[in-house]
């Protein structure tokens, strides 16, 4: 018998995850969307606010959308105060989440390197690091030799097409096991008495004046005191039903995974210029994200040339990956806002709250936004952490522009 492979054993799941109840006719809070954000919101509604007459409506299977499809990177090293505020709050919750949920979520704080390849990358990186430090987010600028120490397989040779000039490093960043996180939230919410309703598609809303009175679903009409929209890429489908215009566009975003490999990649590496972001998961597979497909799409698949480009970037930055094998590709649907920051808060309907536009940041924000949105719903007032992300910033021009400034997606 050979010795056990590192990572061969995943932690066991609990024997009981959630009930599969029939929907009741009425709830105090209806959360549309049973992904990470919806489930986390449900958990924090129960845990922090004692609100349990809640339904989470999911049109497919729980956490089957972006939650099941993302590359699980967790970090909070965003540029703007507003962004690092919500993401850092989230990261602090991640740090206690395993205990909170009683679920082994494989949260691994292995650090993230954001590589810089051009002089402008360096300027942007230093700007972000310095801002992070002043905001209390752990961050540092590291030179190429330090990059090599943190992740020896990065090609730090100076004669490649876009040499690595350094990187930002956030040691507390990391990865977690996405399904386990979602299921952990779901289990706690279900235990608290919140109904998780799968195969339940919202087909419309009933309204009275500027209030929504309930949702129409494929499993019948359900009355609602407050409604929270947590449908990520499908947000526009819901807001169209309500006649609310929201400036998000849904795009395919692909990811891929290799077969299981002995550990070679101890951290998370992201690069914008040589577009790649990669980590090696617990079991040993390389997990990578590709670029966003340019056009609007709800198809949960993308074009293969994007994967090919991704592979070229991976082999360029990590030459030893040459004979790793692409095992599986898939796609999610990201909802991207004009300033690449989320849209959270009030809508023209006084009892409907919006939570969308997270683009590629949704997974890492999961506990943070669940916590803040639950607070918002419980107090009927946007929590200060989400207040800057209101819909009306597009009217005033007070954007939180992570496009131009941070220049680091995902």
């Amino acid at each position: 018998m050979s010795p056990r492979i590192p990572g061969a054993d995943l932690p066991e799941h609990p024997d009981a995850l959630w009930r599969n109840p029939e929907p009741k006719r009425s709830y105090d809070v209806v959360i549309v969307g049973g992904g990470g954000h919806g489930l986390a919101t449900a958990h924090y509604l129960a845990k922090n606010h004692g609100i349990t007459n809640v339904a989470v409506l999911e049109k497919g299977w729980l956490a089957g959308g972006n939650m099941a499809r993302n590359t699980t990177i967790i970090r909070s090293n965003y540029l703007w105060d507003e962004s690092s505020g919500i993401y850092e709050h989230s990261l602090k919750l991640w740090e206690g989440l395993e205990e909170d949920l009683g679920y082994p979520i494989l949260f691994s704080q292995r650090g993230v390197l954001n590589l810089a390849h051009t002089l402008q990358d360096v300027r942007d990186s230093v700007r972000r690091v310095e801002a992070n430090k002043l905001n209390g987010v752990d961050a540092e600028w590291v030179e190429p030799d330090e990059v090599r120490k943190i992740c020896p397989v990065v090609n730090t040779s100076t004669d490649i097409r876009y040499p690595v000039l350094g990187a930002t490093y956030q040691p507390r960043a990391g990865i977690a096991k996405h399904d386990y996180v979602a299921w952990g939230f779901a289990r706690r919410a279900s235990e608290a008495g919140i109904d998780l309703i799968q195969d339940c598609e919202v087909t419309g809303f009933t309204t009275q004046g500027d209030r929504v009175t309930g949702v129409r679903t494929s499993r019948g009409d359900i009355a609602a005191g407050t409604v929270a929209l947590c449908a990520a890429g499908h947000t526009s489908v819901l807001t169209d039903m309500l006649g609310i215009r929201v400036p998000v566009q849904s795009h395919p975003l692909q990811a891929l995974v290799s077969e299981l490999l002995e550990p070679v990649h101890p951290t998370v590496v992201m690069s914008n210029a040589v577009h790649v972001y990669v980590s090696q998961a617990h079991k040993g597979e390389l997990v990578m994200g590709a670029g966003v497909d340019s056009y609007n799409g709800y198809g949960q698949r993308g074009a293969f040339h994007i994967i090919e480009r991704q592979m070229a970037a991976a082999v360029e930055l990590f030459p030893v990956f040459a004979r790793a094998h692409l095992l599986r590709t898939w796609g999610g649907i990201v909802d991207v806002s004009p300033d690449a920051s989320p849209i959270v808060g009030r809508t023209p309907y006084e009892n409907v709250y919006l939570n969308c536009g997270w683009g590629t940041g949704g997974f890492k924000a999961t506990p943070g936004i669940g916590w803040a949105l639950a607070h918002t719903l419980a107090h009927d007032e946007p929590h200060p952490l989400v207040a800057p992300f209101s819909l009306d910033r597009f009217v005033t021009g007070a954007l939180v522009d992570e496009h131009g400034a941070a220049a680091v997606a995902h």
Partner: protein
Amino acid sequence: MSTPFRTAEGGRIDRATTLQFTFDGRSLTGHPGDTLASALLASGQHQVATSIRLGRPRGISAAWAEDPGGLVQVEEPFPEPMLLASTVELFDGLVAHGLPGQGRLADVPDSARYDAVHHHVDVLVVGAGPAGLVAALGAARAGARVALVDEQSEAGGSLLSGTDRVDGVPALDWVADAVAELARHPEVLHLQRTTAFGVYDDGFVLALERRTDHLGAAAPRRVSRQRVWRIRARSIVVATGAHERPVVFADNDRPGIMLARAARTFLHRYGVLPGREAVVFTTNDSAYDAALDLARAGVQVQAVVDARPAGSPQRRAECERAGIRVLSGSVVTGTEGVERITSALVAPFTDGEVGAASVIPCDVLLVSGGWNPAVHLFSQARGRLRYDEVLGAFVPGEELDGLAVAGSAAGVLDLAGCLADGQRVVRAALSALAIVPAADDRLPSAPEPVVPAAPLVLWRVPDTSEAHARTQFVDLQRDATVADIARAVGAGLRSIEHVKRYTTIGTAHDQGKTSGVLTSGITAELLGIPVQDTGTTTFRPPYTPVAFAALAGRDRGRLFDPERVTALHDWHVAAGAVFEDVGQWKRPRYYPQPGEDMETAVLRECAAARTGVGIIDGSTLGKIDVQGPDAAVLLDRLYTNMMSSLKVGAVRYGVMCGVDGMVIDDGTVLRLAEDRFLVLTTTGGAAKVLDWMEEWVQTEWPDLRVHCTSVTEQWATFPVVGPRSRDVVGTLFPDVDVSTEAFPFMTWRDTALDGVPVRLARISFSGELAFEVHVSPWYAVAVWQRLLEAGRPYGITPYGTETMHVLRAEKGYPIIGQDTDGTVTPHDLGMAWAVSKKKPDFIGKRSFARPANQDPRRKQLVGLLPVDRHTLLPEGSQIVEFVADGELPPPPVPMLGHVTSSYRSAELARPFALALVKGGRERVGDTVHVPVNGTLVPVEVTGSVLVDPEGARRDG
């Protein structure tokens, strides 16, 4: 070195040649035509590895890519992880070892070559088995452009595993004829060792050809090791066959347990016996062929265990004639053995009840639970699958445009049927393409099939023992069992996707080729719902794993991304320039002289430009010819300032904003004629600005009579900069009056040098007297050298982008993209003077009126001077309010802005910076703090123009 399990004759191996290889440190032999798996089996070795989680011995259980057992690592000639022994073709010098589910990457770069080829066909046939060959022949004979790809080393598909006859001759003779005929058709591309791994829209199929892997160290270095074929087919025929499905029973994972057809493949194709004593466990007729073939080859077939109550009367008779015992209404309930099966436990099976087991010794147990059509490519094409209750499998459930499934992949399991289906499907495909089948396209004949007895759909042998459920393996690669599925269902999971994720079934190297349908079936059984309702998890590309480097193809190393260079590039290299990447361009950053570092070189270059004369290759600047009667109208709409009032012969600086009012580019505009402008953009903005112009002209203002043409590479551009630039330019172009009066600032003149047109422009990005020299790149090297010669008396000094940046920053000229970040307006840059108040509208104007744009706390561009006169502020540094005690308060610390540009100034004899600071212009004279490496550097806020604020130097 012995190969005791090699048959005396037969098989498609070259017995005259012996290959040496090493597995797990043992030296072994095989023959050309072997796979690693067949060579191991010939030596009597079934076990290849141990399992990932439980450490259980695992062996070869299938003869191709569906094998969940035989994972190996190749070490020589070059390390490659996670290959299947069943798909690695044997070559001399192969070194490999078994893998417990996790591979090892090489620690050196892969020097092999990889590439891609685009190919266009009328009909692409995937799979060169009977259906695929008939389809390819039919299309070829009709004169169509055809590609036939097949993943094996030779054509034949399932025919390679048996003893069938086609057209009255041995099937493989027919295959050879078919292949020869295809080779005679000039429009046919026939590729073996080529796996179609992904189907995309509009008939786009990606296929991986393994060109040299089977040659080992003898592979030619100049030929790509693997090639991705990007095939665009008007019609696709998927003839990918079917995978045999196992039946789950306790301890079904031991080495020596293999799929029934795999045993036939090893026997007929490779001349290898899988063992000496065999038990065959089946739910259908097909496995009887394996029993009969093995018996004929001398294997002691202990029993055929048929789960069906009545078995197959006809096949039973054949077995009896061959002396093989058939146990109908029986199942295998378990096995014994450690590194190899030693016996099967066989029990009666009546009305779903399993009786007491008896032990049948054996060293190989063949299993067949029926057939799963290989619907992967159909499903990737988003074809809907239908559960077929008779087959117990998912089959194509609808017709797709441009993609049809033929033969076993469509659920047709007999040879004659496959041949006919291949013809039927290709004819329909040709008909849709309006291609007429050839008159001589004849369907080959095969023996009339015997109607088989109905198969039994049996996912797992019923077993009430919980302990047994933990060794009823569903996914061998993940060590996932029936017990795991039962736990998942018990935990509340209903979706097959949840079950997969809970158990990890189907996520390993084989992506569930054998385990997927079993999981659907067992889950449905446990939930008490129809299998159709459970469905399958999604089939996603690639069909089989593909090396990263193969997908990277040629885009590696220096070809990863194009390097754009100017006409002077070779000169810059020879001059020892250090380059900077600016977009795809390579630009000289500075030209160090021996012993100089960047700082010294840049101080020297700056001093030359400020006190003598410098020259820079500015050819990368974007240049756009805007021509037509409405050229000025267009520019007025796109620039914030007025361009229509510009006189012919003059030059104006301009700023361009997006509709959101944020600066997107800047540059100078030369009016060449009433109806013609030359627009200069930033290097990075060249393509963006041209696209921007085209977008507005084509989509919003098609009535404008104007055309925009890129002339970036039509003009080499050399700014000659410094107080002595007039001398240099005047010397080289004596016919031009270069005096301030005759050639004022912000004007241009055309001249010629030896008959070659040259344009001179009095534009300055440094504040110094300067002339931009524009000339065709054909003559760029010659003119550059003439300028250097003319400048030699004045010490003309070539300088790079770093010096250019220092010079412009000293003058407070922003670099768009460095001093701006997409959130900066012209007003923020202190360029209200460049924003027309006369024009009723221009792009961006309306956004200036939004509330956030009126905020006095907006960030504005200012200068910074470190009070200590020596600290160089790192670009990107953040700025905070001055703190008297020198200690930052606890986070979050409010930030005022950040340093956008920072340099040492030869002119000022101190470092300086540009910065975006909240309410910055109101704060000129204030002292603020910049945290640098843990200390707070006091910095004075100044105006953005630090050198020559009066602009006295621009005329020299």
